[in-house]
C-alpha cells in the first residue's frame, strides 16, 4: 500500500460515525487535560509572584524604616532613647535582609546590598549594647551613622523606582527567576536585572565598618596569634605530616596543592595508610608558617564502638600531649556514627581558655584520631599573662539570679562574637532541672553570657 492509499484508507475509516465520536472524545479529553494543566501552572506562577512581591514590598518598607531610625538616632540626646532607636533599627535591618534573600535574583547581584543591611543591623546592635551601658555615641560613631543614613536614603530611592516598575508590570519576577544562572552570561539586554545591579552599585564605596559585632570588617583580616615560626617549603611541611600520623602507619604522602589566600596559608596532602585501601585515605592541611596541622579528616568508617567516652577523651588527651599541645582539657563532646567529636580547650593556671580550641574526632572502635581541627587555637593561642581577678568570687556570685542554684565555680577566658576575650568567673548552676553556665566578668562584675548545657545520650553541648 502506498502512503497515499494509506491516507485514503484512514479517511474512509474516519468517516465511520463511531470513529468520529471516539476521536472527538479523545480530543476533548486532551483539551481538558491541557486547560487543567495550564490553570494549575498559572495559579502556581501567581502564587510565586505574590510571594516575591510580598518579599520585595516588605523589604522596601523595612529599608525606609531603617533610614528613618538612623536619622532619629542622630537626633536623640539620651543614651536610653538612642538604645531604643538602635534596637529597632537592628530588628528592621534584619527583616529587610531576610526578605532580600527571598527575591528571585541570584545572590551575587545583590551581595553588597545584603552586606550593607547586615552591617547596619549589626552595628545598630553593638551601639544598642553600648548605649544600654550608659555610654553615649562618640563623634566618630555619629559620623558613621550619618554616612550610613546617606546610603540608606539612596537605597530607599532606588527601591522606590524599582517598586514603580514592578507595580506597572514592567518587571516580571518570573523572567528573573527563570533565567537563573545564565543571567550573568550576557545581560545587557536584560533590563530588570541591570536595575538590581544598579541598586547594588550604590554600595561599592561603603566605608569599612569597624565596631564590636560579628560582621565587622576588621575580623576578615584578623591575624592568627598562634601562628608562629618559620616559613616552610612543601617538602619540610611533608615531614610534619609524617610526624602527625606516625611514620610506621603511613604508606604514602601525596602533595595535592597549596592555598595562598587568607590569613592562614597552607599546603594540602593526601595520606595513604598501611593495610588500608586507597579510599580510606586522610586529607591534611599544614600551615606554611610554623608547619602546624590546621585540619585533618580521615574517611575510614568506624566499626562498632569499643571505647567509652572517657577512654576516647584519654586517647585525645594523649594525642594532644604528644603532638605539642600540652595543657589541653576536654570540654564538650558529641557522639555520632561510632565516633566522638571532642572539644579541647587550653588551661593555664586553672583558668580555662575557651578561645584556644582544638576539635578532635576520635573513632570509638580503636581510638584513632580521624579528625583534627585547630583554627581556633591557631587564631587565639598566645602566652597570656592572666591577672588576678579584680572582684572576689563571692562578689561575682552575688550577681547571679538568686533562683539559680550554683553548683560550682571556675575561672575562664571566653571569646566574644567579635574575637576579643573576656576574663570571667564561670558558674555552673541549676534551675528547673536544666544546667546553665553563667559568666560574670572578673574585672567589672558584669554578667557577660549565659549558656544552657544540653545533656543528650549522644553528648554534652552548650547552646
Amino acid at each position: 500500500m502506498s502512503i497515499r492509499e494509506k491516507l485514503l484508507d484512514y479517511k474512509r475509516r474516519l468517516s465511520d460515525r463511531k470513529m468520529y465520536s471516539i476521536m472527538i472524545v479523545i480530543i476533548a479529553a486532551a483539551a481538558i487535560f491541557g486547560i487543567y494543566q495550564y490553570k494549575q501552572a498559572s495559579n502556581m506562577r501567581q502564587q510565586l509572584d505574590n510571594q516575591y512581591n510580598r518579599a520585595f514590598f516588605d523589604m522596601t518598607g523595612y529599608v525606609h524604616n531603617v533610614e528613618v531610625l538612623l536619622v532619629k538616632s542622630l537626633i536623640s540626646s539620651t543614651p536610653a532613647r538612642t538604645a531604643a532607636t538602635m534596637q529597632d533599627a537592628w530588628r528592621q535591618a534584619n527583616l529587610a535582609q531576610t526578605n532580600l534573600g527571598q527575591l528571585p535574583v541570584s545572590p551575587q547581584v545583590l551581595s553588597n546590598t545584603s552586606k550593607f543591611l547586615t552591617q547596619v543591623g549589626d552595628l545598630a546592635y553593638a551601639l544598642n549594647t553600648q548605649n544600654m551601658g550608659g555610654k553615649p555615641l562618640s563623634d566618630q560613631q555619629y559620623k558613621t551613622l550619618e554616612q550610613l543614613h546617606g546610603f540608606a536614603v539612596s537605597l530607599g530611592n532606588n527601591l522606590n523606582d524599582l517598586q514603580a516598575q514592578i507595580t506597572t508590570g514592567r518587571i516580571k519576577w518570573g523572567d528573573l527567576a527563570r533565567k537563573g544562572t545564565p543571567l550573568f552570561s550576557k545581560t545587557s539586554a536584560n533590563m530588570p536585572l541591570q536595575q538590581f545591579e544598579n541598586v547594588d552599585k550604590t554600595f561599592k564605596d561603603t566605608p569599612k565598618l569597624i565596631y564590636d559585632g560579628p560582621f565587622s570588617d576588621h575580623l576578615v583580616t584578623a591575624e592568627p596569634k598562634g601562628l608562629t615560626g618559620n616559613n616552610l617549603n612543601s617538602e619540610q611541611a611533608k615531614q610534619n605530616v609524617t610526624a602527625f600520623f606516625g611514620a610506621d602507619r603511613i604508606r604514602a604522602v601525596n602533595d595535592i596543592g597549596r592555598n595562598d589566600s587568607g590569613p592562614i596559608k597552607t599546603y594540602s596532602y593526601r595520606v595513604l595508610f598501611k593495610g588500608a585501601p586507597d579510599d580510606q585515605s586522610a586529607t591534611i592541611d599544614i600551615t606554611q608558617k610554623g608547619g602546624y596541622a590546621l585540619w585533618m579528616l580521615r574517611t575510614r568508617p568506624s566499626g562498632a564502638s569499643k571505647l567509652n567516652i572517657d577512654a576516647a577523651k584519654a586517647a585525645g588527651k594523649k594525642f594532644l600531649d604528644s603532638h605539642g599541645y600540652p595543657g589541653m582539657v576536654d570540654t564538650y563532646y558529641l557522639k555520632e556514627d561510632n565516633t566522638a567529636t571532642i572539644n579541647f580547650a587550653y588551661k593555664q593556671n586553672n583558668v580555662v581558655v575557651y578561645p584556644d580550641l582544638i576539635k578532635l574526632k576520635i573513632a570509638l572502635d580503636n581510638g584513632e584520631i580521624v579528625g583534627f581541627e585547630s583554627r581556633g587555637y591557631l587564631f587565639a593561642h598566645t602566652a597570656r599573662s592572666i591577672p588576678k581577678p579584680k572582684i572576689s568570687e563571692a562578689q561575682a556570685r552575688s550577681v547571679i539570679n538568686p533562683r539559680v542554684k550554683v553548683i560550682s565555680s571556675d575561672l575562664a577566658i571566653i571569646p566574644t562574637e567579635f574575637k576579643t576575650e573576656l576574663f570571667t568567673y564561670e558558674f555552673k548552676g541549676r534551675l528547673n532541672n536544666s544546667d546553665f553556665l553563667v559568666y560574670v566578668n572578673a574585672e567589672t562584675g558584669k554578667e557577660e553570657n549565659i549558656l544552657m548545657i544540653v545533656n543528650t545520650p549522644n553528648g554534652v553541648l552548650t547552646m
Partner: protein
Amino acid sequence: MKKIKAVVISALAIVVFSLFIHEALISVDNGGSTAYAQGSGIGDEQLLARAINGEARGEPYEGQVAVGAVIINRTRNPSFPKTIPGVIYQPGAFTAVSDGQISVPLDPNSTVVKAARDALNGFDPTDGCIYYWNPATATSPWIWSRQIVKKIGKHYFAK
C-alpha cells in the same frame, strides 16, 4: 477495524499515562515529607545532607564536607542569609534546589549525612570559602573574578 482499535487504545493510553506522569511530578514536589523525614520535619543536618547530596554526590568525601562548609560559611557572611535553610533556599543559589533534587529523601547512614555532620562540627576543608563551581558546567564568567582558594574533586572553591 483492528487498526482503529489499536489507534484508539494507544491514544487513550497516552492520555492516561500523561495523567499518571502529572501525578508523579506533583508527588515529587512534596516528596520531602516522606520516607526518612522524622517527626516534626527535617532539621538542619538533614537539609544540609540533602543539599550536599544534590550538589556533590559524586565527589570525594572531602569535597562533600567542603560543599557543606561553604553553606555554613555563608550563614556567617554578611552578604548571605543568616540561617542554613535561608542559604540553601535562597532563589538561584544552588541548582540542586532549583531542580528539586533537594527533596530526594536520604538514607540516614549515607556518606552525605556524615559529611553534613562533619561540616556542622566545624571541619572546613575550604578555609572559609563562600563560593564553589564546576568549571565544566559553570556558565557565569563572573564567578572567575573570585579569589580561588583550592580545587577539590571537580569543584573550584573561592572566597
